[in-house]
């Protein structure tokens, strides 16, 4: 039986299979080239890119917690011009989709990054990280209010000509209403979840485990929260949903797909098993075979 794993996220973003890598956990892809054939991926989402270069936060930036980790990298990156000059050229060789994750401290910053990326033919989509602190709104993240999320989305809808994916923060009371606001403002898809705000204390040293005190929790620990949120969002919006948070294998990915996700991303678990993405793709095909499903799309949203 021929099995179709290809999915269509709309607005020109077609993936050969539903497995993407999550921003900030997969570098620029090339870091994993010794372990997997990058062309097997549905696509990879590169590190959060800002207008200016950013040094990020002080060390220590991470601590392992039960079935997960808390990070405070703080968007360290070389800036969009550096990306275009030094990273983009080597990414054009891949047949997998390359998606750029975009961050900013103001609406204008986001839009300028998108404008600079627009001429790059290989980049069919950007993913907008709206979990960034909004400098104007006193550092409160854009993604925590419907107005903030919609404002960024609308500005990017003007600045970016191709697929616009908006990545939602889980640190909100009602993620479905934020998703609705983002859809209204012109997003082509939403991805969720970004990391959960978290904290850990090193009691021996009597100080916070990471330099910023609080940071973002990721890994299997967040998966049940993420699956719940994907389910809620998928019932609210009619644009495609990309699910992520703690995926380690095909069964985990299928939880998101059955809860309504069209595609999934794998983040933290790449650190544990650099081959987790291809194993997940193989596992999805195997699942379909075992269950007599000829098209992965038939499993979407069955819950």
């Amino acid at each position, binding site marked *: 039986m021929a099995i179709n794993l290809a999915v269509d996220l709309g607005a020109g973003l077609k993936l050969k299979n539903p497995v993407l890598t999550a921003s900030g956990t997969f570098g620029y892809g090339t870091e994993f080239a010794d372990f997997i054939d990058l062309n097997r991926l549905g696509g990879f989402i590169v590190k959060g890119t800002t207008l200016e270069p950013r*040094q990020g936060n002080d060390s220590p930036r991470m601590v392992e917690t039960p079935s997960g980790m808390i990070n405070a990298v703080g968007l360290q990156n070389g800036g969009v011009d550096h990306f275009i000059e030094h990273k983009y050229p080597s990414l054009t060789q891949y047949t997998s989709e390359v998606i750029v994750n975009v961050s900013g401290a103001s609406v204008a910053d986001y839009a300028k990054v998108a404008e600079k990326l627009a001429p790059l033919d290989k980049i069919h989509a950007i993913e907008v990280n709206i979990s960034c602190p909004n400098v104007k709104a006193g550092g409160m993240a854009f993604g925590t209010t419907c107005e903030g999320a919609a404002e960024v989305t609308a500005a990017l809808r003007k600045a970016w000509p191709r697929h616009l994916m908006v990545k939602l923060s889980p640190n909100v009371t009602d993620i479905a209403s934020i998703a609705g606001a983002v859809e209204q403002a012109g997003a082509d898809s939403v991805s969720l979840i970004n990391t959960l705000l978290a904290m850990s204390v090193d009691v021996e040293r009597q100080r916070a485990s990471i330099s910023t005190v609080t940071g973002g929790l990721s890994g299997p620990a967040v998966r049940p929260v993420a699956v719940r949120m994907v389910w809620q969002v998928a019932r609210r919006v009619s644009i495609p949903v990309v699910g992520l948070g703690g995926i380690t294998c095909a069964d985990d990915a299928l939880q998101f797909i059955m809860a309504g996700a069209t595609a999934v991303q794998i983040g933290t678990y790449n650190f544990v098993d650099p081959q987790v993405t291809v194993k997940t793709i193989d596992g999805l095909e195997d699942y379909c075979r075992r269950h007599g499903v000829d098209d992965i799309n038939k499993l979407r949203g069955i819950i």
Partner: protein
Amino acid sequence: MKEYLLDFKIADRTVLPGGCAMIEFERADGEKLPPFRPGQFVEIKIPGVPAAMLRRPISICDVTDSGRLLLMVKPAGEATRHLTLMPAGSVVSMIIPLGNGFDTAGAAGKRVLLAGGGVGAAPLINLCRVLADADAQVEILLGGRSARDVQGLPEYYRGSEQVHVATDDGTVGHHGLVTGHPVLNERFDTIYVCGPTPMMKGMAAIARNRGTECFVSLENMMACGLGACLCCVEKTVKGNVCVCKHGPVFNINELTWQ
């Protein structure tokens, strides 16, 4: 250098009096070890420890005469303690080799000092052999709290001319810190250091004062070990750089240490 994801089988284990285990590994597929440089490390997945989902970085200590990979593991927490107790035959997954390693070019004829504190002694073992093979004159300086912390270690430094020791309690060698050892009054062309941060900073200050070339191997907290997550950065004169990729070995002139 190409990185490999490989299964290794524990072949043998020796526990030193100080509590560190010297563990010998063979590739599960029976093949030879991939090439590596002294000072590079592996990311090892320690099975059976739920608290350790992430891999743990461990320096490559040496390769034995029979071609086995030697790692020196200090039981610092749950995962490393478990690793020191795993029986022969156990299989673990490793990513190998990672990081830049020590630059050993042009070592011939030089007089060099390798200073290790605690488990920082590990990466210096292979470095010692490589430098000695390159006709450098190699001396070792080991530090510990007490005699038992360094017991059994000197014999691993093959090709070294002399092994100096400093202990906090004076039970063997110089009584006091490594940084106070009289051998440091002598002239070396290069000093290589791995150990606790205060020791490395102390050694770096001494080297800087004397104008001696000095390399340190850092042990920042790591998540991926591959340069992908940016969790392990150190502040350098060129900004924040990944210790796992651009390090763990740095010339002290690259660091912002005072």
